[in-house]
């Protein structure tokens, strides 16, 4: 099978980018899209050209490192599938695959198909945890949690933080990502004490990062490789409304977004 890959090539945020077309040959439908890029990169390297920069690590659909658009769809055409798990058998001979990075104000561009997603970490920093220190805990079975609650919490906790939801959203909203963490922790008894504060802080951080607002379009859940349900956003809105009222006296400060790569010290 022969295909054309049209890939966004841009050396750094300061330079101009463009699509470059590369013909590729695919020996076997079991080959993944990333393996196809590997083969292309081998050829480019042998020719002395710079290989395409793209991110990946586990290649099992769980680490959330990989991700870019194929023909305008985050993670490509297969539902519930990350790019690293997408095999070439889903494409037809002669097809052109247009590959470009996630585009969002809150994901600054880095190189080729790579962007900076540290804004997600800061959203978690702002409250996406249970404040419990090592050692200071009861027995695991001391807090019974019904199977249904555990399952619903797990459905939300399955988020891999890849950023596809943001890339797919016409508003560039991170509501699904943020809602998934609020739902994961908020459904469990362990997360209840901080439920109000968590929602208020995380939403404030999401806004400070420059993500857009959610208008319930639902593209996010459509491309989500873990099929996080829209219910997570409903849970976020619910907790936020309640929290904003109950916490109306507390001061909410967002963490300042960082875009540089200097970490001090020589």
């Amino acid at each position, binding site marked *: 099978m022969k295909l054309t890959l049209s890939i966004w090539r841009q*050396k*750094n945020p300061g330079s101009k980018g463009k699509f470059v077309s590369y013909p590729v040959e695919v*020996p*076997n439908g*079991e080959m*993944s899209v990333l*393996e196809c890029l590997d*083969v292309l990169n*081998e050829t480019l*390297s*042998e020719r*002395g050209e710079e*290989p395409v*920069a793209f*991110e990946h*690590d*586990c*290649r*099992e659909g*769980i*680490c959330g*490192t990989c991700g870019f658009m194929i023909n305008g769809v985050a993670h490509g055409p297969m539902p*519930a599938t990350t790019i690293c*798990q997408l*095999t070439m*058998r889903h494409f037809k001979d002669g097809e052109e695959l247009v590959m470009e990075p996630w585009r969002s104000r809150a994901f600054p561009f880095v190189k080729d198909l*790579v962007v*900076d997603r*540290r804004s997600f*970490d800061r959203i*978690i*920093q*702002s409250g996406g*945890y*249970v404040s419990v*220190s*090592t*050692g*200071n*805990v009861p027995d*695991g*079975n001391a*807090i*019974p*949690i*019904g*199977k249904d609650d555990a399952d619903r919490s*797990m459905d939300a*906790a*399955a988020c*891999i*933080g890849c950023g596809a939801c943001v890339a797919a959203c016409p508003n560039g909203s991170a509501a699904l990502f943020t809602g998934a963490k609020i739902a994961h*922790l908020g459904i*469990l008894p*362990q*997360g209840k004490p901080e439920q109000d504060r968590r929602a208020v802080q995380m939403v404030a951080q999401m806004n400070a990062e420059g993500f857009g607002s959610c208008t319930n379009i639902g593209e996010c859940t459509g491309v989500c490789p873990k099929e996080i349900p829209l219910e997570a956003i409903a849970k976020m809105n619910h907790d936020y409304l309640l929290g904003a009222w109950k916490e109306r006296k507390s001061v909410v400060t967002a963490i300042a977004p960082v875009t540089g*790569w200097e*970490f001090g*010290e*020589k």
Partner: protein
Amino acid sequence: MKLDARIPTGPIEDAWDSAKFEMKLVNPANKRRHNLIVVGSGLAGASAAATLGELGYNVKCFCFQDSPRRAHSIAAQGGINAAKNYQNDGDSIYRLFYDTVKGGDFRAREGNVYRLAQNSVHIIDQCVAQGVPFAREYGGSLENRSFGGAQVSRTFYARGQTGQQLLLGAYQALERQVDAGQVTMIPRTEMLDLIVIDGQARGIVARNLITGKLSVHLAEAVILATGGYGNVYYLSTNAKGSNATAIWRAHKRGALFANPCFTQIHPTCIPVSGDYQSKLTLMSESLRNDGRIWVPKQKGDKRRPDQIPEDERDYYLERKYPAFGNLVPRDVASRNAKAVCDEGRGVGETGLGVYLDFADAIQRLGVETIRDSYGNLFDMYQRITDEDPYKVPMRIYPAMHYTMGGLWVDYQLQSTIPGLFVLGEANFSDHGANRLGASALMQGLSDGYFITPYTVGNYLASSKLKDVKASDPAVQAALTATEQGIAKLLSIKGKRTVDSFHRELGKIMWDDCGMSRNAAGLRDAIGRIRALREEFWQNLNVPGSGDDLNQSLEKAGRVADFFELGELICIDALERNESCGGHFREEYQTPEGEAQRDDEHYGYVAAWGYTGPGNKPELTKEPLEFVYVHPSQRSYK
């Protein structure tokens, strides 16, 4: 050199408590004056960094990915062991200890393993409190399943994503400390050298992967939690970025490397499909709870599996090991799969595969129950192979998976360089020659949450640490050496890509130092690795420059280290004239083809010292003593 493992004396049940009592404490007000470096944000690194931050230390934590949440621990599927005995099936700390020592084929320290079993129960409590959504019974209590190498149900899990959920728990605890100002997280930054001053670990040299800039970070102690080195074999179940650079460079600065040849091949992975293959996908071991492994009785039987009648199938694990059946430990399961394929009874196009069949389980338990337990694994299998495991048996084959070897550490998890601590898969500590399923996650979290926070404090309180400045000659020397190393890789401008070298190295390792090994093959492998390494340094081509994101350059540095480590793995395998656990030397087997240990001559930890480029490494032996679990021929029959 004489190795002192600092194992506490006295009854094993009290050893860890009394060790903790003996440890010196750092005054709470002084903790914030201590700077610590944690390299790695997997289960071991994130849990250590978070806990040290909670205690009040000033911590810097590094990872090479864009976020700490992406560490390879995220990929662990099956579960985590703990001796809770919630199932009332006779489990206990002592039994978990016993199983782990025996499963490791009597090549681990009893003291360490006992402590691991003790800590296991606290880990579950800790993770539950953080909000890890473990599987639950309808009544609300925690659910368990059984895992290879054990006859009790002691494995806790969160669907097929246990590693992900445990890591997110640790990651969230870490981010909480970042928010509190206790931990500075430094992602996309790779440690390239260890700074040793007056014999103590005092910092690292690191490279920012986006800007290419090198930086120096100084500290009172350095903690490495950088994961395993399975990617020496190129194809493995590890994440593509997993590498040995941090531990290898620390080794070159004086840390001994223990039992490098103890590598684990996982029996249940999706078989290789072509030359372009970039990694191998694990199908969790938990599948062996309900799946039955078989091959056709006849050689070269090319019929579809559903056309092979029951009496023409060989359920070879159930036949040979009636007591454990499909749940024998990994090394036994892997070797048997290789054996039936070598006989020509393998399945699939390449003949390198065996069936893992769920038909009986589906009939017994119903599709829904199976989907509930393994749904995401089945989906993953189908996505890759285009076959439906609810209808057609899975095809599986062994693959490189985990490394029991690693930097040598004492009971306090300190390496042979004072102030350098090593945790998680990066150390050699608790699994001997073979790791049991669901115990790496346990070890990583035990090291990070419950051991290092005490032992690092003890080190700080009992050591004299002088003030160190970046202008120190040792710091500058490490920085210059790193700069030169990078410049060298970029300057070769040869013809071959990094991946082509890595693939070839991996093939040598897999063929001659994989599931089974022999002296002639190992000698030959060492020669071929050296020749290939020489070619690497003359004919490598790294496109691009050193001052921006250059993934070929990152890989080149890692592969350069894999060459040296690969050779050491073979040297260690050649030196160990016995079979034990994952190390199977064809010359040493029982008449039934099982591993034949030689406790009298090889009942030790082999700790290797670096003696300079091209020189023969120096071997130091740490004898192992077994007071509680008497070494016996492992039998799973």
